[in-house]
């Protein structure tokens, strides 16, 4: 392992410059204004406004389709990580770039650089990729994860992809440095999604990685119908296991899959970390394409126990494995327990698994009024979160078909938005905004409060089309935002449960990681509050430890809740 300061390439330090992206050519300004007017033109009751042009975020994930190879890795697109890399309190945005595929006789797969945009506030972003040392393209990139693996207070990055999954250490001065703590074990592999969370309870975030298949261009299967080539489906390839890496400190990771209890082949496309049975220990949920989804339950010691089938989160409502992709965790029915939301392939409903009071789950898509609503669509990026500030988690689904032309539903599809009316959802896609009235090749997505107005905004990453930034216009009248800081300087509060009263109703939020698709969303938690409140109190259940109440928190601010500084609650 080499430290950040030792051999890293020279990079410019970062100086905030909100005007850096302003155009000096007046003709360009005029064009921009016209385009902006055309593309935004929101209706009065739209929930979201497309602010992509205004924000200065210009980015397109590319999958190499133009080579006409129809390789399996073209299917899934890329992701975004919401990351305050410079710790200035603003949510910055990292996005993977994808890659290139050669069209000549021997297939060469190359990487495209990822990108980092710094948030200067007021929807002004600046591309700081080269300055931050992230402009190299070590792999054909897909998902990404955020975690402070070296516990220095600065969030680090992990980028998944084909041949060269990469760990970037945040040097703390606005730059990143690539490290290779696992040697050859990942260099030839294809990883799709990952999550940082402490599975061995040593306070350091470990890494769990999803893989889709043991694949290479040489093993790629050719699929066609009626003479038309297209991408193959998952059944053309054998799945493979997830991987677990233990963070042993000093920036070293050792493969720990066996000791961690990782087992069974999956076509893994998402790994989410959260305390899903509320026993105080971090669990992992793996969404898999056509093989049963997995639930690894954490405990006081390893191994994790895979209980997807017996807990009722592996299958659809008829007991069949589905093509599972995006995932999120929230309390959709207000019972204080974490429910699991999973987006699925066409001809399948997206799955909502309701948590029961015995640690089990029950398929609740029909109960929630979501049966059939997405059956002719393919869901990728998603979020189950409170977009309209009424305390109930709503649903956003970014749709798009991985198959270019031979599937039942089209390659580009409309996204969806569902409002939660108290445990039952209603389709409000028409009120979503201009983005929701068009079709997209939707893949990765993340949510974050980029403008700190208490409403979660959306980053949508279509494939081969520009990224879209959607500002949430449903800012709550009053709110509080909290960030958790566990004791002993632990960098990771994953598994904690946080609750607050909202007009006589207890709202519960969960510290989760890896939600959305291939992405990492804003880890801060937002609670709407009654308009008349000037202060609020928040209860935190720390993972496997005590509960604390934090009182007298000023509204409309972000509070760092440090374990031990609240008022202990004895049950």
């Amino acid at each position, binding site marked *: 392992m080499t430290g950040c300061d030792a051999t890293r390439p020279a990079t410019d330090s970062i100086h905030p410059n909100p005007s850096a992206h302003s155009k000096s050519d007046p003709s360009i300004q005029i064009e921009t204004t016209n385009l902006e007017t055309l593309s935004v033109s929101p209706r009065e009751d739209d929930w979201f406004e497309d602010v992509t042009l205004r924000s200065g975020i210009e980015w397109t994930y590319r999958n190499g389709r133009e080579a006409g190879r129809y390789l399996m890795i073209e299917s899934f697109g890329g992701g975004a990580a919401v990351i305050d890399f410079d710790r200035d309190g603003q949510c910055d945005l990292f996005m993977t770039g994808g890659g290139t595929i050669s069209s000549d006789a021997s297939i060469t797969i190359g990487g495209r650089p990822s990108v980092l945009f710094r948030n200067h506030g007021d929807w002004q972003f600046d591309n700081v990729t080269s300055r931050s040392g992230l402009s190299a393209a070590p792999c054909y990139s897909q998902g990404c994860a955020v975690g402070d693996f070296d516990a220095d207070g600065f969030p680090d990055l992990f980028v998944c992809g084909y041949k060269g999954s990469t760990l970037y250490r945040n040097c703390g001065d606005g730059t990143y440095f690539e490290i290779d703590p696992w040697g050859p074990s990942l260099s030839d592999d294809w990883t799709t999604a990952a999550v940082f969370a402490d599975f061995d309870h040593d306070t350091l975030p470990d890494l769990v990685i999803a893989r889709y298949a043991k694949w290479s261009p040489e093993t790629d299967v050719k699929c066609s119908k009626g003479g038309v080539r297209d991408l193959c489906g998952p059944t053309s390839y054998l799945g493979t296991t997830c991987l677990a890496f233990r963070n042993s400190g000093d920036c070293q990771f050792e493969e720990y899959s066996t000791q961690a209890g990782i087992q069974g082949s999956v076509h893994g496309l998402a790994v989410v970390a959260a305390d899903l049975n509320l026993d105080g220990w971090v669990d992992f949920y793996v969404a898999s394409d056509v093989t049963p989804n997995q639930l690894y339950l954490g405990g006081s010691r390893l191994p994790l126990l895979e209980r997807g089938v*017996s807990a009722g989160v592996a299958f659809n409502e008829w007991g069949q494995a589905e093509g599972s992709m995006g995932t999120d965790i929230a309390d959709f029915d207000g019972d204080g327990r974490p429910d699991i939301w999973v987006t699925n392939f066409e001809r399948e409903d997206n799955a909502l698994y309701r948590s029961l009071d015995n640690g089990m789950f029950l398929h609740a898509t029909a109960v929630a009024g979501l049966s059939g609503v997405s059956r002719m669509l393919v869901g990728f990026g998603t979020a189950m979160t409170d977009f309209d500030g009424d305390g109930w988690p709503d649903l956003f689904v970014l749709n798009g078909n991985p198959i270019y032309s031979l599937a039942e539903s089209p390659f580009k599809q409309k996204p969806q938005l569902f409002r939660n009316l108290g445990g039952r959802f209603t389709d409000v896609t028409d009120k979503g905004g201009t983005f929701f009235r068009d079709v997209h090749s939707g893949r990765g997505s993340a949510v974050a409060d980029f403008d700190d107005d208490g409403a979660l905004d959306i980053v949508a990453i279509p494939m081969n089309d520009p990224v879209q930034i959607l500002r949430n216009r449903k800012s709550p009248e009053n709110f509080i935002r909290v960030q958790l800081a566990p004791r002993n300087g632990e960098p990771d509060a994953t598994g904690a449960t946080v609750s607050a009263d909202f007009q006589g109703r207890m709202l519960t939020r969960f510290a989760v990681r890896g939600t959305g698709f291939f992405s990492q969303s804003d880890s801060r938690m937002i609670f709407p509050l009654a308009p008349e409140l000037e202060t609020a109190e928040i209860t935190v259940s720390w993972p496997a430890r005590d509960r604390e109440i934090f009182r007298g928190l000023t509204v409309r601010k972000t509070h760092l809740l440090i374990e031990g500084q609240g008022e202990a609650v004895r049950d």
Partner: protein
Amino acid sequence: MTEVNASPVRINFRRLKVSVCAAAGMIVIAAICWRLSQSTPVQLLERGLAESEHDPVVAAQLFHRAVDAAGGDYPDAQIALCRLLLRRNARQEAAGLFSTTNYSKCRTDLLLGFGRDALRMKQRTEGLSALEAVARHNGPERLVALELLMSDYQEWGQRPKQLQTAESLMELQPQNPQRWADLIELQTSLARESECVVTIQRALTQDFPVEFRSHLQNTLVQQLVNQGDAREARRELENLRKLENDSLRVRGSEVYVCRLEGDLEKALQIVTTIVDDAPDLPFPRFTRGFVLLDLRQFKEATDDLERVIATQPFNAPAHFKLSEAYRGLGNGDLAAKHQRLASEIAGKQIRMTSLLKQRDEDPYDPLIYRELEQLHRELGDLEAAKLWHRWAVRVSPQHSLIPSSQIPGG
């Protein structure tokens, strides 16, 4: 005495007359022979066709001569000869000749005749090729060819080809309700939901009898439910209700529409009326079981689902739903047991689906049929097992001698 000494002049005249007649006869014969030898290929073919019923040998000679007269390439005569060979049970010879014949240029009536005979004589490859060629033409034989193809694909379970044929038949005879029914059934079985909805909507524009319209309307509701389109399903359900009032199937469909709409209380209320009306039918009880499960009435759900399992022990979804109900009751052991059963049964069913798809590609592989037989036997469907056994023997008679232990899944 004088008679003996006849006039020499007179005798010569008579000789002359005989000679002339003989010569004339010879000329006529020669002319006939010449004419025969100079027949056109078409004439030879027609004569051969005329002869083929009474004298196949002469007919064969005529077909050969027709081919020769055409310079060695005369598909009509070649196909006629193929058919003749088949009728004489010279299958190999017929197949050999057929493989070298450019039958796409052949008269469709001849090709149809050959195709029909070939299927009857178990020369399936040649028969299908001939009939498919006929079906590509817009002649009067197309309908019969399509019907023969449909029947064959159905028998051999080749559903994608069956679907194409059904589409052609429907376009050819849109006034025939059976054509629409066949097509809709195939689209349903192949999960072509979107196409199926369009087909039904087109069928409903035809002037069909009420009973058939009712059937179409009910299928349309089911397809819309499958697509998850609650609003359209409700609209079409109300149209169905106009035709049938609150019949059993109207109520049955409404349960699913209500569930799509998220109105589970109403779904429960309706399905309970069906269970009351038909207490011995497992399907309504199964439906009520999972609606009760939706409503987290776990005990009531187990009661219904246990009764379903008692009559349908290989109903995988019922086992799965029962496992969910037991999970809700906190009975992990029973939940695990029914989960395991559901997985085992579903695994077999998935395998059967996969085998049927394989059969679409290669209907002559006896191993497919033996495995299907075995799987059906394991799932308690002995009738189906017998059916697949017969197929295994049909495609490979010696296969009846192979012990089950050598068969995958056996």
